[in-house]
């Protein structure tokens, strides 16, 4: 039998009830059904753990040269044996799992410690821009004052500004400290959260539960903060994970260009830069491993953001 199966109508009538709440059982079921999301969650968790405990876990001091200079990583065949030896504590010096670079610095330790900069910058910048952007977006969308709308119109004009170059300028001219990178990125990403939250708030304000809250006698600010805000955060929360990934890419790229974090602070982009010249000589390990680290980490954050977004759209 063949009949056309029509997709669900895209219309949604007005409803009196606020959107469904997130319960523990729903979360557990979601985690069980989405293996991709679980992978992303594992990656993100590892990156956060490394950001905090990286220096503790790293076998070598990331800034201290070792006698083994330009040593390649151990061959794949020898890895299981080396793992056994390490676990049994039979090794005098820890294995250089990722090899060493030109001055003998252990690449594995440097890769483990770099999240201290990359991930922390990403999370901090996103956190600041999230809080600022959503609050401003809530105000703009809820109170609909003339000044709020002009802010949005003005920000549209400045949409044309070259954000990468501007960010570079700000970072370099403020002295290239980690805090400057965080603040620059926060300034860059705030308009994103502002626009997202504002449009979400605007669509929520028309819903009946807001009117109901008003009818009961709540003050406007209370309605805004207690009722509308929690229901308007979903797009912003989804965007947060993606933004952290962007921030990591930006920090790495900036340091790669020589305009970011100052050496010798271990940072993935900087490591790739210093390893780039060695690539032509055939020494691939100084730049491949940090690159893999960036790639996997940002993919992890992207997975979370995209899977949540795909679910949210249904």
């Amino acid at each position: 039998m063949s009949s056309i199966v029509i997709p669900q109508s895209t219309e949604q009538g007005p409803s009196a009830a606020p959107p469904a709440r997130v319960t523990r059982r729903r979360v557990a079921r979601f985690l069980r059904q989405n293996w991709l999301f679980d992978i992303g969650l594992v990656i993100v968790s590892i990156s956060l753990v490394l950001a905090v405990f990286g220096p503790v876990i790293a076998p070598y001091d990331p800034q201290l040269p070792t006698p083994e200079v330009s040593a390649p990583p151990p061959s794949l065949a020898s890895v299981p044996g080396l793992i056994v030896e390490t676990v049994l504590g039979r090794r005098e010096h820890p294995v250089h799992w990722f090899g060493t670079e030109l001055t003998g610095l252990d690449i594995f330790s440097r890769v483990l410690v770099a999240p201290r900069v990359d991930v922390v910058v990403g999370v901090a910048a996103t956190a600041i821009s999230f809080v600022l952007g959503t609050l401003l977006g809530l105000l703009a969308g809820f109170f609909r004052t003339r000044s709020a709308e002009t802010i949005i119109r003005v920000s549209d004009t400045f949409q044309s500004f070259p954000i990468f170059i501007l960010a570079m300028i700000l970072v370099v001219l403020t002295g290239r400290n980690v805090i400057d990178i965080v603040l620059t990125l926060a300034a860059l990403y705030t308009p994103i959260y502002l626009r997202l939250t504002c449009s979400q708030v605007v669509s929520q304000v028309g819903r009946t539960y807001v009117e109901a809250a008003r009818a009961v006698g709540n003050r406007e600010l209370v309605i805004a903060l207690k009722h509308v805000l929690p229901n308007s955060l979903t797009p912003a929360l989804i965007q947060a994970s993606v933004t952290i990934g962007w921030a990591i890419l930006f920090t790495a790229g900036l340091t790669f260009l020589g305009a970011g974090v100052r050496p010798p602070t271990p940072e993935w982009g900087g490591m790739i830069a210093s390893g780039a010249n060695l690539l032509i000589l055939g020494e691939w390990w100084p730049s491949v491993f940090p690159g893999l680290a960036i790639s996997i980490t940002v993919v992890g954050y992207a997975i979370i953001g995209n899977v949540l977004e795909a679910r949210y759209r249904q």
Partner: protein
Amino acid sequence: MPWRYILRRLGIAVVQLTVISVAVFFLMRALPSDPVGHLVGFNASPQAIAHVRHLLHLDEPVLTQLAIYLGFESARFGPGLIQGNLGASWNSGAPVAEEIRTYLPITLELITYSFLVAVVIAVPVGLIGALRPRGTVSRAVFLYSLFAGAQPEFWWGLTFIFFFYVKWGLVPAPLGILSPFSPAPPRVTGMVTVDSLLAGNLGSFVEAAHHLALPVLTLAFVLSGPIIKMVRQNVEKALQSDYIMYARSCGLPQRRIATYTLKNSLAPCLTLIGILYAYMLGGAVLVEQVFSLGGLGQYAVRSILSFDYPAIQGVVLVTTTGSLLILLAIDVVHSLIDPRIAQ
């Protein structure tokens, strides 16, 4: 043709350009660094500092400085923005406008080819990924676009160089668009591939294309991620829409349904491509650096790291203007496709 809307947008663009020019002026002054110190040295004598301040017109009132910058005081202080003068680079002494004229076309060349390749690949892939929303192909497309959009392009550029140049020798050394030994074709647009075609110099064209192969591959790779995602989402939305369902129930043939779907998904995708292109004017710097192409991004980095204020200012102005014009063009095309925009 929605003429009224186009004219209105053009009018707005003129206003925006003026606002941006003034904004850049104040932006440069708000930066947390001292240009005089960078030009003359931070330990210079007070006379030297005063002299330099006078040279930079920093001793004039702010509004006068703005007028000088814009070009309204050309009789007394020389040409300004309106006359096309962007100042002289502190690094090289050459007029910034000249230097940008050299570097900008290279970036445009790189970006345009990359976008062409990315679109040619991404649109069909996104389309296929939207046809059966829960199938294996769709999931694969989703995973690929997620992966591609999260990659550090500078690292991939290096990886490509390692395999295609170092290991396999398939492409020339990453030392720019032409080998240092090859003469460049006579300059018409500044884009090497275009100029060599215009001059009938096929050898030059092939060489430039060969050099551009890896950079374009790298950039197209990371661009394909967000473009595929946008195409897939929009085609899916169109396929599930009520008007497509109604068109099917009227017995419209598959080809007509396909035309409707494509037309309706095109508009938001165009907007994204425009925004990405505008972003890439400054954002392609990483690829430019890895392959030593000599584009605008590299010029920007050099200028920023050496605190070359006029050059920085010039780059910001030019890229912003470029972005504005691109976004304007996108808006106009959008209004041609979607009649609701012009209301």
